[in-house]
């Protein structure tokens, strides 16, 4: 299934710690998507990156819980950054 890239969307691994974003699409694999869904991440979910050291796994907060994701997995999540002021909820 081709993912149509929105103009501003980028991979989760390119977000800096503290940045908030909305998940746009999750790439590759039915099983992977289902597992992420169970952990609270589906397209449309708001996430905050807590840890991203430029290498190794990342930590994100989603739906009030925190999650460690392998870098390979995080790279497959397309997000749209949100400026810290004007987010709706």
């Amino acid at each position: 299934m081709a993912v149509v890239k929105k103009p501003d969307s980028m991979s989760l691994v390119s977000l800096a710690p503290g940045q908030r974003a909305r998940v746009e699409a999750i790439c590759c694999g039915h099983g992977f998507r289902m597992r992420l869904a169970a952990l609270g991440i589906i397209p449309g979910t708001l996430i905050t990156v807590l840890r991203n050291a430029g290498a190794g796994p990342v930590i994100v907060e989603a739906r009030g819980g925190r999650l460690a994701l392998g870098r390979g997995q995080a790279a497959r999540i397309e997000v749209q950054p949100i400026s810290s002021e004007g987010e709706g909820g």
Partner: protein
Amino acid sequence: MEREAKAPPKVIRVALAGNPNVGKSTIFNILTGLHQHVGNWPGKTVERKEGACRLEGYLLQCMDLPGTYSLTAHSAEEIVARDYVLRERPDVVVVILDASNIERNCYLLVQMLELTDRVVVGLNMMDLAGVKGYRIFPEKLEQAVGVPVVPMVARKAQGCQALLKAIIEVGTGQRTTSPRPIHYGAAEPTLARLKEMLEGEQLEGLPAHWIALKMLEGDEEVERLEERALARETRERIHALLRQHEHGPAVVADARYAWIEEVLAEGMERPARSVITFTDRIDHVVTHRFLGLPILLGIFVCVFWLTFKVSAPLSHLMDAGFARLSAWTAGAFASYPSWFVSLLSDGVIPGVGGVLSFLPIILILFLFLGLLEDSGYMARAAFVTDRIMHAMGLHGKAFLCLLVAYGCNVPGIMATRILENERDRLLAILINPLIPCAARIAVAAFFVGAFFPSPQSTLVMGSLYALSLLMVVFVGFVLRRVVLPGEEAPFMMELPLYRAPNARNLAVYTGWRLVAFLKKAATVILAASVLIWVLSSFPAGADLPDTYLGRLGFLLQPVGRLMGFDWRMSVALLTGFAAKETSLATLAVLYHAEGESLVQTLHQSMTPLVALVFVVVQLLYIPCLATVAVMRSETNSWKWPLVAMAYSLLLAGGLGLLIFQVGRALGLG
């Protein structure tokens, strides 16, 4: 004749479900009085556990299901949990939710409500909800969900009575539940069509609406059921319909979270911005990109050093005590037959005593491991080590299995069930025996303490740990490339809130291990001590080298000699296969000298170099019997335990040879 017996209690079958690490086992233990292992990292209960509790003429049969995030068919735990609910049809399913992580937790609740409406919600960890700034109104939540919601703090046993009451009410049908309906939006017409197609079909007793939903989600197990239960024609019609709805899974997940948002909007208040918690502050340091690893190392060095420091004097005290006990026995029972006195004072007491002197080490190590586990640090350790574990083609979660193995390899191997991928599991199982368990460390500590003075001994122990880690990385690397190549499994792990460790949990955790150890001392090791005594005492009147055991030792000598071992040490390694502690018991019997402690006799019998070689070999040489058994049951074949035994023997022999020959060449032995 009229039967006067009281009416038998009415049986209510209860299943306890919930995400990992939400307190299911804690609640199960309170309800049933059983002592299940409790800790603070996701995924400890890997099998279902059963227990019962009696109340007001009811018998509640409780089942503690493994923690799962969802009810898909992607892991063994999820299948266990959902098959139990689907096929055994418990009267009540209790879904335990973590109030401090309620939104994500509700995802399982929705899925459970798709399966059955006989649900009671145990809203646990109410004490932690405030930390997150949540205000939860259980009555409003109950209204919104449509099933009983019981607020609880399981750690303080709060809310259990109310939970039991709700279970009985729902289980007996006194209280009917009416779960809030879930609207699948765009998928509704498809679901309706699927249900139509399934009408009148035999679906092994499973509800058609659930099967339809799972078809839409692309569930593999349901596809298999389809093949068993449906005619080809029906299947083709269904697949044609499903092909038009590629987005089925996404729509379903979306609908579930929409349901959750509605429910939570009615039942709780959340701060607009997430508050900065104690957990955030700690994580800021311990998951730091540069500090994380040194902190982890620091913590474990401290743990092992303290364990060694505190337990060594206690162990030596016990060892000396048993030496005196054995001497005293020889005198006190002088009027009994001499073989009996010898069995006691040369066989049972030194053998079992030598092993019991490990008690302090085991106790303290498990206490520390329990402390780390209960606090929530373990999940961070997985995060921090993820990058290193990648070198072995594993990810951070596998590190947890290795950590547990420092206590004992058996639970370490069982813990590999938290790994989703078969290849990862096999790899983690195969390298597990290389982690020195408490028993092997205790044997090592005994030798090192006996042969090396204080500052040196710490260094030697440290190098032994480092050596075993090096071997883990090396063997993992080789196995990963040669035996088990394949794709890397995804790493996804929840990081729980830190919690103050709980004394009761710790006591249960440590006590449980202690009992297991004492049982082993009372059975395997006692039997081994007697056997060794028999083999080393007969034929009657023979000198030790001419006894059966002596002859066995000489058979092993060609190999043992290469590493500087005398026949007694070879025999000790042989018996160590039964349980690693047994090798010390064997040495205690074989080197037993009247009124002297083992330390003294050993000192006269070998050089420090030989002692070191012995320690290295016994650290690595072969998984013990219990470990082999659990490897066989976890991998369902003899192949992998045999592989593990073969490679570890080669590794230990090779290293032993190397150290001894190099050491001797350097003039150390």
